[in-house]
Structures are given as structure tokens and as C-alpha cells.
């Protein structure tokens, strides 16, 4: 499944923090019409580069679905960055 939410948290050395819940499902819904519009261009580019368009589409979909559960957390002293996808 594609990730539906992302949680982003920043904290700087001055201890100012910033947290954000991103509803990724809305982002996907907004990007869907753009993706549909760009689909013919995608097929043309794949044909020009002699790349299997269906295979490319499948791989990009796998990358998208594979993002679910990604967790990146970096902390240095007071500063920290956290990104987590659900």
C-alpha cells in the first residue's frame, strides 16, 4: 500500500520545534490528474529511450508503495529531524 500519512518533525539548536502531519493521500489525489495528463508523455519518452514503459510504471509504483514504513531520524545535540511515513 502507498503511504497515507507522513509525520515530519524538526527541532533546531535553539530548541524551537516544528511538527507536521502530512495527509499524503490528499497529495496523491491531487497528483493523480497530473499523472494522468503526463502519461502520454511518459510513454513517448520511454519509447524514445527504448525502455519498457509498463515495466517502468510498475517499478515506480513499487517504489511508491515501498515508502510506507520509512523512518529517518537524525539528531545532533539539540537539533533533530524526523520523517516517518505511515
Amino acid at each position, binding site marked *: 500500500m502507498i503511504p497515507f500519512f507522513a509525520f515530519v518533525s524538526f527541532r533546531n*539548536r535553539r530548541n524551537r520545534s516544528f511538527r507536521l502531519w502530512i495527509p499524503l493521500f490528499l497529495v496523491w489525489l491531487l497528483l493523480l490528474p497530473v499523472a494522468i495528463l503526463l502519461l502520454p508523455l511518459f510513454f513517448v519518452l520511454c519509447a524514445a*529511450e*527504448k*525502455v*519498457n514503459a509498463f*515495466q*517502468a510504471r510498475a*517499478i515506480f509504483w*513499487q*517504489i511508491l*508503495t*515501498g*515508502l*510506507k*514504513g*520509512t*523512518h*529517518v*531520524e*537524525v*539528531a*545532533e*545535540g*539539540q*537539533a533533530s529531524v524526523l520523517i516517518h511515513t505511515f
Partner: protein
Amino acid sequence: MMNEHRMQILQMLSAGQITAEEAERLIAALENGRASGGSDESTEPTRKARPKYLRVLVEAQEHDHGDGPTKVNVRVPMQLLRAGVKLTSLIPAQARDQVNVALRKQGVQFDLNQIKPENLEEIIDQIGDLTVDVDDKHAKVRVFCE
């Protein structure tokens, strides 16, 4: 296959790496596994739980400027890794040849055309057994799959 595992346990016992009790427990566990589901070699790999995530944990000691220790905690889904390595199959043949030429110029005798999806799948599967544990006075690094 079972005899091979048993031999390994006995070799570890003779080398003093494990005690007699531990060896007995390991052998008993092997026999239980054989009794419950059979020791068919073709089913052994499927019974082993496939790891879902690759974890990287780094803890570096405090720097001189007193910022505090640096900690890194990264968890990457294995599915993302699989999809990422499959991207190599999208590289056009012409680009692959150019990359091969560039690699050979650097003295790297590697042919990108030899990379096949089944080989990459096997690599990803074997990464499940990967464990890196570095414990230094300046930093601790752990890489493992879970």
C-alpha cells in the same frame, strides 16, 4: 542439511564457542524443527521469515564543540530496496554501455549487462542475514535487518 547443521554445532562445541548445554539445546531445536515440518531443503528458505526492514543505527560521540552526540536511526523497507535495485533494469542499453566503458577506464571490470533481476532478488534476500556491528570509542554503528 540437518547433518550439516549438527556438524557445525559439534564443531562449535569442540572449539569451545558454546557449552555442552547450549549444544544440546541447539540440537534439540534442530530435531524439533525436523519433527514439526520436515527438513526438506526446498522448504527451509520459505520457512525463514523474510526481513521487512533494513535498519541503520549510528551513535557518534559528542563533538568537540559540545553539540551533543549524533544519533542516526534509519529504517528502510526492504520492498523499497527491491524496487530501487530494479531501477537498473530501466537503464537504456546505450547508457549501460557508456557506464561500462567508464568503469573499465577506472579499472573496474564490471559489466552492467550481467545484472539480472533474479540476481538482485537473491542479493536482497541475502541482505536479510547481514549484520554489521561496529563499536568504536568514537562511534557505534549497527546495520541489520528485521
